[in-house]
């Protein structure tokens, strides 16, 4: 057989049939559901009188608009003050009950952001096809899954048929070789990749991240990397299986056991691109050259190293210059300003990009024994799941955060997209570990700067962006 990429293998192993027009029916192993993009899918199912094809292929949890403060959370769904949010979470509960779909409901110990709990619980295993009505499903590709976001009609399609109609993407390999410097993380790596590729650079491709710097990352770092494949335009980001993957999966609650584990490992070991596999595009980056990154504009490609100055629109083409000018106006910044002179009003450490235990450890290591700057109005830490939260508390991280003046919250998406009460005021600058800096993303008029957990922590202490390596 011809040499295959990891993506080719995953595709081939889930191909139900090719269709005449070049599209294919692809079998879906696991669907993750949350409250925002599923109600209309369940409604469609009911209207058509259909049942889920395989109900246990699905797992649900509310995450996007659950409150993260304990006053509201202690009363469960009933405690959600915002009536539309409450109805949406209730609707998820009701739909799961009606169709017997497993759900980690709002106060379940395993509740959390879908993309965090899938891998954490072992509900998404290497080699699976995983979908969710949410573009950051790409996160799960870190486990060598074929994982991507879908729309609500497709959620309904998967519920009803266990399949998706798909066109195969082209293969792209992003190779990062060498060693990341101290204080530089997977988040900086992916921001640098996006700055290099542009937000549409990966459109139409499935990206496999490879190279020695990627292999050196922990699973959590790989998840951060794959999480933002979508910000480079690709719906899929992946990393091949290696010992790091297997070690991570071994202890997960829903990992296979005994002989099944052995059989699974034998298969998982094949989940890497063949030596001479063909990629339609290859992009190379040198890990050593990556400094801590900060986004300055309203698109994830508007990213600079911490020591840079903001770019001059006169130095670029007309279309990009127009986008930069709008971004400057929205962000309240000027060309020529130093990144490190951008003030920070709020800090958000959380989201499916950076809310896992290692992210919290990295932030806590910077913060330990210091105080949030007086000019910072609010600094939030929102763990990605109940399990992350308990682990962090067991390690005493919550105490480090709260002693420094951070708020320690309950798991959910929170200020990543501000569907609950956690949001920016107009004009406020936020050092955020999330993944999107679009206009209004974290609250109308809010100004988001995407950074790593360590950089967010350092910005909280300084009141402006600083190089965490010199901090």
């Amino acid at each position, binding site marked *: 057989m011809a040499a295959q990429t990891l993506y080719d293998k995953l595709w081939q192993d889930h191909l139900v*049939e090719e269709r005449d*027009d070049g599209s294919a029916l692809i079998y879906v192993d696991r669907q993750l559901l949350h409250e925002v993009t599923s109600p209309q899918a369940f409604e469609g199912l009911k209207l058509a009188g259909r049942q889920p*094809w395989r109900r246990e292929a699905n797992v649900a949890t509310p995450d996007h608009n659950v409150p993260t403060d304990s006053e509201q959370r202690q009363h469960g769904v009933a405690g959600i003050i915002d009536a539309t949010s409450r109805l949406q979470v209730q609707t998820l509960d009701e739909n799961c009950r009606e169709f017997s779909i497993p759900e980690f409901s709002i106060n379940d110990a395993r509740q959390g952001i879908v993309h965090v709990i899938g891998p954490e619980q072992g509900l998404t295993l290497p080699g699976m096809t995983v979908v969710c009505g*949410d573009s950051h499903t790409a996160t799960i590709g870190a486990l060598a899954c074929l994982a991507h976001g879908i729309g609500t009609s497709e959620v309904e399609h998967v519920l009803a048929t266990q399949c998706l109609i798909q066109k195969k993407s082209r293969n792209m390999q992003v190779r990062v070789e060498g060693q990341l410097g101290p204080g530089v993380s997977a988040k900086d790596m992916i921001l640098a990749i996006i700055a290099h590729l542009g937000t549409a650079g990966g459109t139409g491709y499935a990206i496999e991240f490879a190279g020695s710097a990627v292999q050196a990352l922990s699973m959590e770092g790989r998840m951060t990397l794959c999480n933002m494949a979508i910000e480079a335009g690709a719906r899929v980001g992946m990393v091949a299986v290696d010992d790091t993957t297997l070690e991570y999966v071994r202890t997960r609650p829903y990992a296979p056991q005994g002989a099944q584990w052995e059989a699974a490992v034998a298969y998982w070991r094949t989940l890497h691109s063949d030596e001479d596999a063909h990629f339609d595009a290859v992009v190379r980056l040198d890990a050593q050259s990556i400094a801590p990154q900060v986004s300055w504009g309203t698109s994830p490609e508007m990213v600079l190293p911490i020591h840079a100055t903001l770019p001059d629109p006169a130095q670029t083409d007309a*279309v990009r210059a127009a986008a930069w000018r709008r971004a400057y106006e929205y962000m309240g910044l000027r060309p020529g300003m130093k990144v490190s002179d951008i003030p920070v009003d709020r800090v958000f450490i959380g989201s499916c990009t950076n809310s896992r235990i290692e992210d919290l450890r990295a932030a806590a290591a910077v913060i330990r024994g210091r105080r949030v700057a007086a000019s910072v109005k609010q600094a939030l830490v929102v763990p990605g799941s109940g399990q992350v939260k308990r682990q962090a508390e067991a390690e005493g991280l919550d105490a480090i955060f709260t002693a420094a003046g951070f708020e320690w919250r309950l798991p959910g998406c929170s200020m990543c997209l501000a569907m609950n009460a956690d949001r920016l005021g107009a004009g406020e600058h936020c050092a955020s570990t999330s993944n999107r800096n679009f206009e209004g993303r974290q609250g109308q008029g809010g100004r988001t700067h995407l950074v790593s957990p360590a950089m967010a922590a350092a910005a909280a202490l300084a009141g402006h962006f600083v190089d965490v390596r010199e901090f």
Partner: protein
Amino acid sequence: MQKFITFRGLVAPLDRVNVDTDQIIPKQFLKSIFRTGYGVHLFDEWRYLDEGYPGQDVSRRSLNPDFVLNQPRYQGASILISRDNFGCGSSREHAPWALQEYGFKVIMAPSFADIFYNNCFKNGLLPIILPAEVIASLLVQAVQTPDYHLEVDLQAQCVRDDRGQSWSFEVDDFRRHCLLQGLDDIGLTLQRAEAIRSFESRHRQRAPWVFNAIDRL
């Protein structure tokens, strides 16, 4: 799903790159559990001067006079022209729902984000990819020519203007067929239930762990 009929429509220009789905329909409107009610909130943050929230009386809100779709000449537009990477960001299908409910039937751009592109077809909205130069000139026309209309012929895969100029576009056969016929994807896939079942049983042999019960939840 409604059949996509070949039609002529008024063209509105949205001269921006990277129009993201957060902009098309801001997240507070995603709290709705219904499929409708999004059209009045299309481009909410650009379109209105005040902050929008679900369920409000939009007739009392103040419109942003600077936003292109608020200009009288573009009222009733059904074709939207924009720049590269339209529909990037979140996978929310509320974006095509909002565009369609507002009255758009066609979006033209040099490139679209994958998930958005796909979602359009599921909802009878046609995304058309045209070369960047063509889009640039159409944007100019839409500004300079009063009452600028285009005709979209999905059968022939081409766009025409009233002066007889035309541009062809690519769209894959299956998607075109579904749009033309108004076909329901799920019904079509369920016709292949036998093939799915037989795949499933082979897959279960090869990767039984995929099918482990999660009833312990």
